């Protein structure tokens, strides 16, 4: 089956799958050289990985300035068709929601051009139910995992595959991540589908579960993100938040100060660059943070 590459949490995997293609959500590796100074390391890593993909198409979203611009850089570097999907920053108006729904329809036409097929409502419902159950299992697994150390929330920008070691560093420092609230983690999973609506308007339910419900730093206003983290801090008994963002990422950087001011628990603000030697420094900072919380 032809695969379609993407990384943004606002791209519904079930929509690609229902069109008969294989959704391949990528967690890019650290990029090599070749990007100008000032480019966010995650966007650089995505550009690098997407430009060398075997997938039949790449979906990029307008989730931030750098990602929007990444689309044309990837297009210039490879032959693979690129679809730039408009994800509105505003989310409280019917017009913004409609724009997102229209973009899903446009994505559907793009996928059809690649050899996909427009799904029937029954196919879409079946695919949505399948993905919904996978996510429900993931949530249940996360919730039943018993914290071994001090319960912490890991929040912030998306992780590259090489960044996953932050979970180990947190454990080494005596903490446990009880919620992955990075862009790409549990926080950015779509809401569980409303079964009644699913039966009558699957496309509408799909759009709403993603567009109306995913808290992300790019949304204007951004209160969903703050409400989510406040709520989950209490619900998960977390004692602090490790907030990890990339250098040159204004979207997640912009939230750091306010989260520190408003969350009812301490926040450790970690800036991730591209330097491997940061590891020891990061570990020391996490250790100090955990010590302080104990």
């Amino acid at each position: 089956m032809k695969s379609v590459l993407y990384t943004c949490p606002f791209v519904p995997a079930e929509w690609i799958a229902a069109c008969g293609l294989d959704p391949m959500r990528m967690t890019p590796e650290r990029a090599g050289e070749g990007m100008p100074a000032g480019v966010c390391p995650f966007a650089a890593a995505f550009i690098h990985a997407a430009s060398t993909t075997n997938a039949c198409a790449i979906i990029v979203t307008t989730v931030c300035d750098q990602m929007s611009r990444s689309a044309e850089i990837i297009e210039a570097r490879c032959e693979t068709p690129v679809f730039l999907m408009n994800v509105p920053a505003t989310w409280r108006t019917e017009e913004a929601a409609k724009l997102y729904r229209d973009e899903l329809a446009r994505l559907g036409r793009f996928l059809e051009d690649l050899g996909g097929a427009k799904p029937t409502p029954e196919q879409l419902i079946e695919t949505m139910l399948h993905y919904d159950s996978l996510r429900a299992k993931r949530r249940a697994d996360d919730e039943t995992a018993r914290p071994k150390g001090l319960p912490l929330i890991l929040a912030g920008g998306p992780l590259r595959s090489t960044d996953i070691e932050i979970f180990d560093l947190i454990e080494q420092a005596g903490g446990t991540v009880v919620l992955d609230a990075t862009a790409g983690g549990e926080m950015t999973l779509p809401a569980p589908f409303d079964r009644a609506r699913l039966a009558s308007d699957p496309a509408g339910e799909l759009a709403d579960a993603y567009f109306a419900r995913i808290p992300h730093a790019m949304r204007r206003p951004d209160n969903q993100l703050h409400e989510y983290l406040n709520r989950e801090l209490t619900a998960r008994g977390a004692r602090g938040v490790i907030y990890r963002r990339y250098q040159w990422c204004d979207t997640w950087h912009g939230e750091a100060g306010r989260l520190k001011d408003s969350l009812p628990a301490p926040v450790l603000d970690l800036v991730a660059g591209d330097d491997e030697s940061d590891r020891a420094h990061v570990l020391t900072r996490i250790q100090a943070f955990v010590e302080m919380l104990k």
Partner: protein
Amino acid sequence: MNDTPAQITLDQWDERYDQLRSAGLVEPSYGGPLRRHLADGDTRLAHLRYDNSPAALRLWNFLLTEEDRLRDARAAGAKIVGAMKDLGTVAVMACSMDNVVAFYPDGAWWIPCMMELGAGLLNIADSLGFDESFCPVRAMLGAFVTGEHFPRPDLLTCSVGATCDDFSAIAQRIEAMGEKIVWWEAPHRRRPDRGETPVELPGGFVAPQCQVDFVRGELQRVADALADLTGAKLDSHMLAAGIEAANRVRAVLRELRQLAYTAEPCPMGALEMLIAEMLAIHFCSDRTESIAVLDGLLDEVKRRVDAGLGVARPGAARIFWINPVADLRVMNLLEECGGRICGTEYLFPHAIDKIPTDIEPMEALARMALADPMIGPSAGRAARICDDISKFGAQAAVISRISGASHCAMEGTVIADRIRKNLGVPVLEIETPPLSDSMRPTLKTRLEALVEIVKRQKG
């Protein structure tokens, strides 16, 4: 009275001002010697070189008295609208209504330069978590905190979506501090897909009608907010009249640019032209007066062109300048290095294009908003820049990277490559902070080298 064009210092302006006054200079209410603005803290003025015409004096005084104008408007009962991240759209709407004054909070961008960091706005932004990895517009955050550089707006709007992340993040922080913001979405402009109705936008980009319709809906929400603020509806007739007035500003500016950027010798300096261009976005809080100020500047430029006079030596290297520069002094430096401005793209060429008048006014504004080169692919912006470089006959381009700006890292390369490939014109990329004095020798060397390359090519 000596009317020979020259670029003079602030000290020289003192003497020049007295001479002009003795010769019967008549000034508007905001007139006066330039030096008085130093007392307001605009200390950068002491390091700039200015055009010596009364028209330039009026331009500078108009610019530097905007805060007074806004406070007077408030005192007179006008409603004040802060149109954030708005390059010539919401201001046109707001100014179409009676008793409403729009201003551009983003203008705080230049306060750290003008006050040589004396206002402490960047320190305030730092303390709120917005460090130098953000563009200089973070000074606006400081300005909202101190309340010292503009009055608190009665209504604050901000475009988001395909606009820059710097601004979106900073505006969000401002909202979190208690300022209510009407957010409106600017979608990433794209080419029409198969089966979609294409619309040609002012400036030549093409977008699908559905995107124009969407923006139109967003602007209608802004119009509704204006109606809530004033108790009066912004109807089509009012908006058409507002568009006509905005088009007058744009028409004068287009003529001014055409003359100032093509005549030989260069009839008006880079600095004054930069400020003149900025008037197109927000009218410096007084649309009628901005037309008068630009008319004055245009008359002066015409006089000089007719007389074969200018401020730069004939044969100066013809440079196309891309992006506004955080330190205004760099515009003087270009001229000191033997260059002159020959075309610009300060992020808002669509705010200089004529707003269509043969279609429904809100539709016209929506098309204009969607024509913003910053909300579409960098390649589109680069193509328009290339056209303008050819049109103005520039011999080289300077891309003035804006430190911290989320768009600069990727688009700078796209634009530079396109110019080199399509036009074979040399391109210099520089990056300047709000105060560039410490890097002045390096900047000077690089600009001189560019001028030298141009001269060698000519030879």
